[in-house]
């Protein structure tokens, strides 16, 4: 009987590592945060009921998408930062790598576990958000119908369509998708840093700085280049920052979506592609460091 040939790259092994990473992360009760998200949404919708329906829906969308963005970014950083150090501490890493598992498979599996966790979190949060939005929309619609009983059918239809237009916007979907893409990028970058970092805290703190630099760099660049006439030292510094840090403002489309702007398909696709390129590249970098790392 011949033994099955060992393959250099196996999706089965990656799936097993991903499933294991996902299970570990769920055991950390990360999903409890979703309860806080639900409370935030419901509390917000009750409080905002005193505003006009346009104001209420805008604030509800802002808070939901803002909370989604904060939560997924934090989860991506904190969850990924602990993966390799934890496995090293538990000695699981040695057990896995002692088997015929390539280091790239190990890293890809770990990252896939985090991305799965992020995807499930984003789906649950989006579902909660849309349920709350729908409930509030129905409440406002029935209030409007009651208030406009004496109006003509045309006026009633116009008022109801204004309520519907303020509540649900199809552009929310690309906005949420880009929040996920940004979280994937952050997770991959965190994985890369954790391959050479000495501790989880170091990785997390460094990533918080990267997060701020990534968001600030485009504003700072525009300001410095305009205001100061920019000498060569400034330009060199700006080029250095632009080369080594991702421009995270490019992934911040929700501010404009909530303001009622449409996101063109081309822009969405380009942004998502850039995000996945970043994710893939940081994974490759992580592998290049981890490949010959002394364990």
């Amino acid at each position, binding site marked *: 009987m011949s033994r099955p040939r060992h393959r250099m790259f196996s999706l089965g092994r990656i799936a097993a590592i991903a499933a294991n990473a996902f299970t570990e992360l769920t055991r950390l009760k990360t999903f409890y945060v979703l309860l806080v998200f639900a409370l935030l949404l419901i509390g917000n919708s009750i409080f905002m009921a005193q*505003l006009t329906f*346009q*104001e209420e829906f*805008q*604030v509800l969308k*802002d*808070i939901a*998408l*803002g909370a989604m*963005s*904060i939560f997924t970014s934090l989860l991506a950083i904190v969850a990924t930062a602990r993966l390799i150090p934890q496995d090293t501490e538990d000695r699981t890493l040695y057990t896995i790598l002692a088997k015929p598992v390539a280091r790239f498979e190990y890293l890809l599996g770990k990252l896939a576990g985090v991305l799965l966790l992020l995807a499930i979190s984003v789906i649950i949060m989006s579902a909660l958000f849309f349920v709350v939005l729908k409930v509030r929309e129905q409440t406002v619609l029935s209030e409007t119908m009651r208030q406009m009983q004496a109006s003509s059918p045309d006026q009633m239809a116009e008022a109801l369509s204004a309520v519907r237009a303020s509540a649900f916007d199809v552009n929310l979907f690309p906005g949420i998708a880009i929040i996920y893409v940004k979280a994937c990028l952050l997770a991959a970058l965190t994985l890369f840093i954790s391959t050479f970092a000495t501790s989880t805290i170091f990785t997390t703190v460094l990533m918080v700085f990267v*997060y*701020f630099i990534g*968001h*600030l760099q*485009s*504003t700072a660049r525009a*300001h410095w280049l305009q205001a100061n006439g920019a000498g060569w030292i400034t330009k060199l510094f700006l080029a250095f920052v*632009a*080369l*080594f840090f991702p*421009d*995270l*403002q*490019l992934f*911040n*489309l*929700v*501010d*404009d979506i*909530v*303001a*009622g*702007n449409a996101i*063109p398909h*081309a*822009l969405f696709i*380009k*942004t998502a592609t*850039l995000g996945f*390129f*970043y994710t893939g*590249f940081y994974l*490759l*970098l992580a592998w*290049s*460091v981890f490949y*010959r790392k002394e364990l």
Partner: protein
Amino acid sequence: MRIVVVILGLALFGAAKLPAEHALSRAHRQLHFRAVDFDLAMREQIGQLGFVAGLSGFRSLVADVLFVQAHVAWERTEWGRVLLLFRQVTTLQPRSLLFWDMAAWHMAWNASAAAIRDSTQPRLALRIKAQREYFQLGKDFLERGIKNNPDRPQLYEALARLYRDKYNDHEHAAEFFEKAAALPGAPRYEKRFAAYELSHCEGRESEAYERLHALYASSESERLPTLIHRLKDLETQLDIPLAQRIPDPVP
């Protein structure tokens, strides 16, 4: 050696991604996204925490918090605070029409009404002056809002209403209703409103009559009481021959 390779890889990838990032930034600017000036004036306005939050991708959240504060200030009729907060809100979220519209409404309608009824100011001239200043503040908000959102009709309409209701300036009101009507997504009534306003402008009655008549002829649904009323008035004013007058009775 490996560190050198990694740093080199990062730099090469950075050089490759820069054109893509520039193209995306350009697309954002074309769509008027991120039209926010984060400078020292803004830093002073929204405080350090708000400034950092605004810069870190939570601009609209900060704007909402300030908007709720403005709402509370309005309930307390603290007009100075309402103005200050709305300036911050609109600076942070310049693409939100709602904020510009609300800011202008608070200034030109609510604050101006409070100013003219201000019992602590015995001199009428000063009350009128304050009222006019609030009209102007409302107008400023709408003009800046239009600059930031030139492609959307709502603020043009709001400015037209302000000219009509607060300044009694039908010429400008007609102009801005007309501009709103020309933009995609504008409601059908904008064209009608522009013609109504034109009909009140001295010397432009014939033009107004032609426009109103064209609307009247375009569809049954346009033959609303106000339109018929204005047409009847203009027929008398312009001495239109009886045979050419519309058959409808005066509503």
